């Protein structure tokens, strides 16, 4: 799956500087599936390409290879970065807030703790010190950001609020159904 795809030589001549090709291939392997690495001849001919075919918005960097006059072109698919950003935004609250702490998520396992601490920062006090309304809003806040899809999230929030997991599930059930029921009822 991560094996680089080799488009082969584009020119009629066999590529000289095999070590440059080998370097490009090894580089593509190290960089992973989001990057494409090409060896480009002085006349602009793409002699060898490793990595995925890139679609959409692509950003590229060129690295000269002085000995042969060729250059390496590194391409990155920005649409993949956009997709990664959307995923991160689903996990993160206050992504655009200036109050967001400098530390980003280091492990998805920690995401729940991060979300709770971000919620605490947005309210200005710890969950234990929050009043009734603030606690209720934090739960809704977390739910709206998909926090309860995370492992152990209900347990974590229930412990923090001093209620049972049952109650949190129950509350989520009720608060989610209110959204769909409200247009017809009340």
């Amino acid at each position, binding site marked *: 799956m991560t094996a680089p795809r080799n488009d082969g030589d584009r020119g009629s001549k066999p590529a000289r500087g095999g070590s440059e090709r080998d370097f490009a291939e090894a580089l593509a392997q190290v960089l992973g599936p989001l990057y494409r690495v090409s060896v480009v001849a002085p006349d602009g001919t793409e002699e060898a390409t490793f990595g995925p075919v890139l679609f959409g918005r692509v950003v590229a960097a060129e690295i000269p290879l002085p000995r042969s006059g060729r250059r390496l072109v590194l391409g990155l698919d920005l649409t993949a970065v956009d997709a990664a950003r959307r995923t991160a935004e689903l996990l993160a609250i206050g992504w655009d807030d200036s109050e967001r702490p400098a530390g980003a998520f280091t492990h998805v396992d920690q995401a729940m703790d991060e979300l709770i601490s971000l919620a605490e920062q947005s309210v200005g006090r710890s969950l234990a010190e929050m009043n009734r*309304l603030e606690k209720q809003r934090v*739960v809704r806040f977390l739910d709206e950001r998909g926090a309860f899809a995370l492992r152990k999230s209900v347990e974590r929030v229930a412990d923090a609020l001093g209620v049972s997991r049952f*109650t949190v599930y*129950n*509350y989520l059930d009720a608060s989610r159904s209110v959204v769909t029921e409200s247009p017809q009822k009340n």
Partner: protein
Amino acid sequence: MVGAILCSSMVQVEFTIYPFQEGNSPPAHVQAAIDVLSASGLDVDVGPLSTTVSGPADEVFDAVRSAQSAAVAAGAERIVVRVEVIG
């Protein structure tokens, strides 16, 4: 009788009364239940998502029954209850 066995048990009953309304003080249909429980002298904890009452099973069940009636009279539409034997 089963009731006789339960009488010696300590239980914790936690319930959430719907419709759920966000706010710093509980809505009237929740407050009605809390008032009944508070008058019982049992240990009552009013949480952000639920209310919990603990004590001897027979006393707790009696109090919860009265509290539920008060809640329904005050407009409760659904009461979700969890009972746990704690000793």
